[in-house]
């Protein structure tokens, strides 16, 4: 991969520093404030394996730190997923869930909430993430099959887009039906999961989402340059030596793995995948290598700020993060729509 231009390179360190600051703030503040001293002593005790942890130190190690890291990872996944989808569909209003991933994951989760106990399926803390992940994968596979994307010469973006809309509607109807037959506590679980929450963060979640995020971002960087060529048009990309059909399949696969795994642990978080790539394009430009790297950082920044707001706005109550991202995302998106001239 050739190196990014100077116009892009200068932005990334700034985003990196911002991400560190936001993450630190996210760890520091909440319903319980954790002092820097407690963070330091907790890390020393944890790494040295000596000393009894105080409650604040345990909160830092067991709750805040995994939550902050998961926030960064999920933000990165959603933002990079958004950049990939927008490049693939050459459409600025696409987000990762368009190919059915989010609605499929929501259906899988709803199925678990309503029927999980009856089906005697229980794998402990992994049951919900696996159900959501399976749902996301199934929906995306259906989109891929029904759009004819698996058939040579039938990889129409329009077909994928329309099939995605149809499958999304189908799976959301399934979620609606399950909500309808659910009992009150189950309905509440479905509702809150659909609005997204990072409160279930754990070190297990961090390791799983971390592995998928890192691997998928590395893969995304590998295919960012061909995606740049695709922005010229499918035929033009073919002339430039890009195997468009293969590129689409790989990018879709990368997106679905990254988004399904992230969504499985946090629920549906809207607008991050839509807004972050736009902000980055406004900031510097539309090179997909920059959008992937910048998205990895800015997704974390945006979601970190949203999580901080979700925890502080009505402290000690906690807003579902999807509410915050939607409330902030909608006006931002509307402003961006008025400035479409920047989009290639």
């Amino acid at each position, binding site marked *: 991969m050739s190196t990014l231009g100077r116009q892009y390179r200068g932005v990334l360190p700034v985003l990196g520093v911002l991400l560190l600051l936001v993450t630190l703030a996210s760890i520091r503040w909440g319903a319980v404030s954790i002092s820097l001293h407690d963070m330091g002593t907790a890390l020393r005790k944890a790494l040295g394996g000596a000393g009894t942890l105080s409650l604040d130190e345990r909160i830092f190690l067991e*709750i805040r730190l995994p939550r902050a890291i998961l926030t960064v990872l999920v933000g990165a996944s959603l933002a990079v997923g958004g950049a990939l989808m927008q490049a693939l569909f050459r459409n600025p209003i696409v987000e990762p869930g368009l190919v059915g991933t989010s609605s499929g994951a929501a259906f899988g989760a709803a199925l678990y909430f309503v029927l999980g106990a009856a089906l005697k399926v229980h794998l402990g803390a992994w049951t919900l993430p696996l159900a959501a992940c399976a749902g996301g994968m199934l929906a995306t596979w259906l989109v891929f099959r029904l759009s004819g994307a698996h058939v040579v010469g039938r990889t129409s973006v329009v077909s994928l887009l329309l099939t995605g809309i149809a499958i999304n509607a189908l799976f959301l109807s399934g979620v609606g039906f399950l909500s309808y037959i659910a*009992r*009150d506590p189950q309905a*509440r679980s479905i*509702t809150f999961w659909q609005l997204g929450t990072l409160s279930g963060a*754990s070190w297990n979640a961090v390791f799983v989402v971390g592995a998928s995020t890192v691997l998928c971002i590395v893969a995304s960087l590998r295919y960012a340059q061909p995606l740049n060529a695709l922005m010229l048009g499918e035929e033009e990309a073919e002339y430039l030596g890009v195997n468009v059909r293969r590129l689409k399949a790989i990018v879709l696969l990368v997106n679905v793995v990254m988004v399904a795994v992230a969504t499985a642990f946090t629920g549906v978080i809207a607008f991050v995948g839509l807004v972050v790539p736009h902000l980055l394009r406004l900031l510097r430009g539309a090179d997909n290598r920059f959008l992937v790297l910048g998205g990895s950082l800015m997704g974390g920044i945006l979601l970190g700020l949203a999580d901080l707001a979700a925890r502080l706005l*009505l402290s*000690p109550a*906690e807003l579902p993060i999807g509410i915050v991202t939607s409330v902030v995302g909608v006006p931002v998106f509307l402003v961006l729509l008025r400035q479409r001239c920047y989009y290639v």
Partner: protein
Amino acid sequence: MTRTRLLSMIVAALSLSACGRFASDDTRGDHAQRIVSVSKQYTEILYALSATDDLVAVDVSSTYPPEAKKLPTVGYHRALSVEGMLAAKPTLILSGGPSNIGPEHVVDQLNALKIPMKYWDVPGDLDGAKTLIRDMGKEFHKEARADSLVAGLESDMARVLDPAKAPTDTPSVAIIHYGQAMNLYFLISQGTAGQMVRWAGGRMAIDTAGFTRMSSPEVLAKANPDVILMTDFGYDRLSGRRDILALPGVAATKAARDGRIFRIEEHDIIYYGPRTGKNVDLIRTLLHQPGTPE
């Protein structure tokens, strides 16, 4: 559309909570231990036992006695956030049992933080409630007070169940409970509420176990109850008789025609406790009073 409505509803609910009980502060800092009760039944018993010196927060459904509403709240007992719980700095959480507290990951996190959680595994009937009162009395060194509460409960029950005072009619009753998750309506047919209705001289109009989704107006219309009791959360959200009659199937019932739709506090009918005898008396009054037809 649904999502937008959902968002608006939750934002509104949380905003109201923020203006109200979430804004409450624990004004005393001299607690020997810091107890958080996320069970409305436990909260009421703690107050009845006068064992609230170290009670620092309750869940939002703990609404009795009124003093409980002045305490900070940690949220709804099945939708808790770990941050909200930790803000109360609890040293003991009274959970009401595994099925009473959620979501699962919050319970796991609280366990990981080694915050003690306690519940008393007693049967869900009136005898279980008596055992619970005694067990909680023992836990909080209020044995004498617990014995007196149980004696009072037994005497109240003996009075309300006196065959000589039994009402002559047996009205059929439907209880509409407004679920807090998605504005769903339920008919509570069996369990605690059903039993209390039967003690009060009524019979349940819809004979199914647990909660039944009020999905079809025909279910309620066919049951045609003489009396409808509606729990406070739903009743208070509706702005009068017209709204209530607009609920699915309600207008077609005898209760609606006779004007016998009455409000009841959830904490008077959802669980057994020290006031159960008095609550049965209250329900009996509601079931056998004349209506106000339009």
